[in-house]
């Protein structure tokens, strides 16, 4: 994995500029990649990493600049030419057809449309998966594979086409720490065989672990290019955000009474995602309960029960020691459960409604209407209060919410949830996809709510976030819930073993 200084240049991006309307996503970005080298492309969400790679691969056409592969200029906007030149890309959102087998997904587009040359394909796939340590069955349907397996299929797809340059867009975002390790092993094998890799990430420890060199993007510009051997995480973080990084870390506090208790709850499996299996969980006042785990392991089912969208099929739910007679989203709201939904676009807001309408979505029937008539004056005042109090940057309360950035949208949803002074706060992936400023803001608000005595359930895939904020940490895997671990008693690696499900067997045996 050591790309020597003198090694052949395989890829050269020269002063790439790309604009989307008023936004300049890439501004004169240049980058070179040598044979056998791993270059990390580092930057916050929205820094322009994915845009740059989509230009390289031909999904977008750059407004200015050029791309050269092995010294040959690449025609813009043509994925076929990029593939032919030996560039393979593993997209952040996998480009696989779920109804096809692994082999079919890999073969797609590699043969003439009327030929029938099945022979050789299977052998080649099997050889590649052996050589690179990418275990996956060629005849398995992609729709039934785990996320980690799908990623292996994506990498196999690129290798099958004899890619010499591999672009991985946030490959570890969906993996457990152990799966990430396996991926890194594959990448080391690949670079050992002379491939070159561009590794896009915003996770610093991974970049330090795998990359030889690191190019840092901020607001579409290259703000630094450093050897990973000659730098450290703090320096990279400072480059990324343009200043010292300061995410809030909650200090330990004594927990109060149990506000919500879920006991022995099980739910049926839903398609590929497992239901809950005998889950028992207590949410205490003045405590942030962190729920770690790779998404799709039952977190959604648990969140539905806490938020009132579902009643436990089996097991019990109690609030303040009592079992509620009805349990609906309206009832949950009325009893002081506030929600920051997992998907702010689909569950948290209505894109074409304005800020006022979105602000009163959870209270229009109770707090903002009388005898069936809306009180728009109160609604507007409420929205203005959130905009001021939570620093929502927008032209005004009659802006449609779809025009807001993710961070500002989330601040409005946060303000809406906090306005009723909730006892219990369900925060499901509250900072996913936000920039660092908004992350710090949302997290500090959650800590503030805890400090005034609320019980917070924080669901996140990001272990750093979980470990930084939670007073007690549970891990979910395959619908099972681990015991609670007090702050600071577990390392990320130990939690990773729980996430992978390995610790559960041991726990049951004991």
């Amino acid at each position, binding site marked *: 994995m050591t790309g020597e200084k003198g090694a052949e240049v395989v890829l050269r991006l020269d002063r790439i500029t790309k604009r*989307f309307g008023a936004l300049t996503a890439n501004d004169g970005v240049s980058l070179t990649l040598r044979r056998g080298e791993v270059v990390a492309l580092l930057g916050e969400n929205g820094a322009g990493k994915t845009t740059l790679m*989509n230009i390289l*691969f031909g*999904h*977008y*056409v750059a407004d200015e600049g050029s791309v050269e592969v092995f010294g040959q200029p690449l025609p813009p906007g043509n*994925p*076929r030419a*990029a*593939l*032919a030149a030996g560039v393979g*890309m593993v*997209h952040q*959102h996998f*480009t*696989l*057809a*779920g*109804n*096809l087998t692994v082999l*079919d*997904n890999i*073969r*797609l*587009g*590699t*043969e*003439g*449309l*009327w*030929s*029938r040359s099945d022979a050789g394909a299977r052998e080649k796939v099997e050889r590649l998966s052996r050589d690179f340590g990418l275990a996956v069955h060629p005849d398995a349907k992609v*729709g039934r594979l785990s996320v980690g397996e799908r990623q292996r299929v994506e990498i196999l*797809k690129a290798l099958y086409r004899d890619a010499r340059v591999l672009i991985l867009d946030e490959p570890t975002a969906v993996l457990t720490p152990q799966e990430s390790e396996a991926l890194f092993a594959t990448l080391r094998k690949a670079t050992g065989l002379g491939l070159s890799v561009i590794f896009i990430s915003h996770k610093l420890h991974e970049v330090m672990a795998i990359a030889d060199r690191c190019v840092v993007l901020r607001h579409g510009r290259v703000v630094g290019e450093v050897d990973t051997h000659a730098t450290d995480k703090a320096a990279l973080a400072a480059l990324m955000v343009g200043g010292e990084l300061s995410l809030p870390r909650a200090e330990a506090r004594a927990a109060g009474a149990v506000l919500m208790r879920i006991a022995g709850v099980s739910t049926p499996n839903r398609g590929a995602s497992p239901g809950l299996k005998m889950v028992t969980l207590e949410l205490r006042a003045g405590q942030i309960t962190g729920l770690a785990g790779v998404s799709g392991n039952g977190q959604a089912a648990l969140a539905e029960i806490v938020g009132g969208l579902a009643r436990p099929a089996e097991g019990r739910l109690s609030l303040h020691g009592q079992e509620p007679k009805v349990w609906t989203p309206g009832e949950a709201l009325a009893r002081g459960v506030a929600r920051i939904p997992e998907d702010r676009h689909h569950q948290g807001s209505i894109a074409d409604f304005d800020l006022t309408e979105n602000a009163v979505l959870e209270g229009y029937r109770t707090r903002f209407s009388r005898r069936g008539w809306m009180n728009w004056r109160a609604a507007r005042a409420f929205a203005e209060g959130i905009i001021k109090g939570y620093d929502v940057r927008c032209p005004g309360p009659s802006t449609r919410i779809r025009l807001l950035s993710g961070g500002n949208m989330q601040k409005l949803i946060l303000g809406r949830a906090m306005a009723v002074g909730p006892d219990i706060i369900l925060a499901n992936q509250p900072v996913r996809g936000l920039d660092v400023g908004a992350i710090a803001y949302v997290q500090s608000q959650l800590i503030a709510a805890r400090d005034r005595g609320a019980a917070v359930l924080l669901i996140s895939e990001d272990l750093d976030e979980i470990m930084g904020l939670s007073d007690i940490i549970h891990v979910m895997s395959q619908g099972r819930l681990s015991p609670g671990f007090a702050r600071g008693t577990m390392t990320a690696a130990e939690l990773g073993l729980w996430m992978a499900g390995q610790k559960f067997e041991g726990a049951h045996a004991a």
Partner: protein
Amino acid sequence: MSEIVDILISASFWAAVIRIASPLILATMGELICERAGVLNLGIEGIMVIGAFTGWMAVYQGMPLWGGVAVAMAAGMLFGLLHSTLTVPFGLSQHVVGLGVTLFATASASFAYRLMLPEVTSPPKIEPFQPLDIPVLSDLPWLGEALFSQTALTWAAFAVAGLVAFTLYRTPLGLAVRAVGENPAAVEAQGLSVTGLRIGAVMVGSGLMAVGGAFLTLSAFSSFFFEMVNGRGWICVALVVFGAWKPGKAVLGAILFAAFDALQIRLQQTELGAVLPYQLFLALPFILSILALILMSRRAEVPAALMVPYNKGER
């Protein structure tokens, strides 16, 4: 009850079933190709009318029967091109465009009919496809009449179903079509053209729908009249769902529907027909089809990108 059994074991009943199923099979295969590529083609009803009209008119003007089939196919592909141009590169609503194409195609057929035959009161007849006489097989006692006294176009319908199944599952082209209906980004990422594949699929599919329509004028009846397609297109849309987007199951569905249809005509002539209103019999195949649809389609895997337009480079 014994009357129903008598009907079910009669050779003429099964001959009718296969005859009724043939146009459904052709048009269902057409719709299936479109939907597998991710495009719902509600132009099917009108495209069948166009196929029925153009095929018949071509033969009436002196072309051979197979020439009529080719003309119908070409006309169908033209309307398929219209449909796919609007729905694929322009990404318009597939419901609206489909219904628009149906209205436009149906009206075009009426308009052309009046223009070309201004003074005709009853539609002129042509000499349709005749049942093929197959040595030995056609002379078999029961089977000969039930299965082997069909026209060439019926044989073609079953051959088309086999060809569609083979292409979808055994060729790289079929692989690409199935992938483009499931995740167009996957196709794009492999360097194939999403637009090209979808337009091609809709054109070929629409061509088959038109041949299904032409079956009515060139094989089943010998002339063209308005309303002759009579909802068969919509049935085919349902049959695709019934068949869970798989050619073999869709053919079975077409045969099942045809059997209900043939049965209800014969039931009307029994004692039951004297007691019950005939509308009940007409509704029978639809009611049974709905029930079968509910049972069959519960575990179907819908193409994930069906009705989702693909815009290259959209964020």
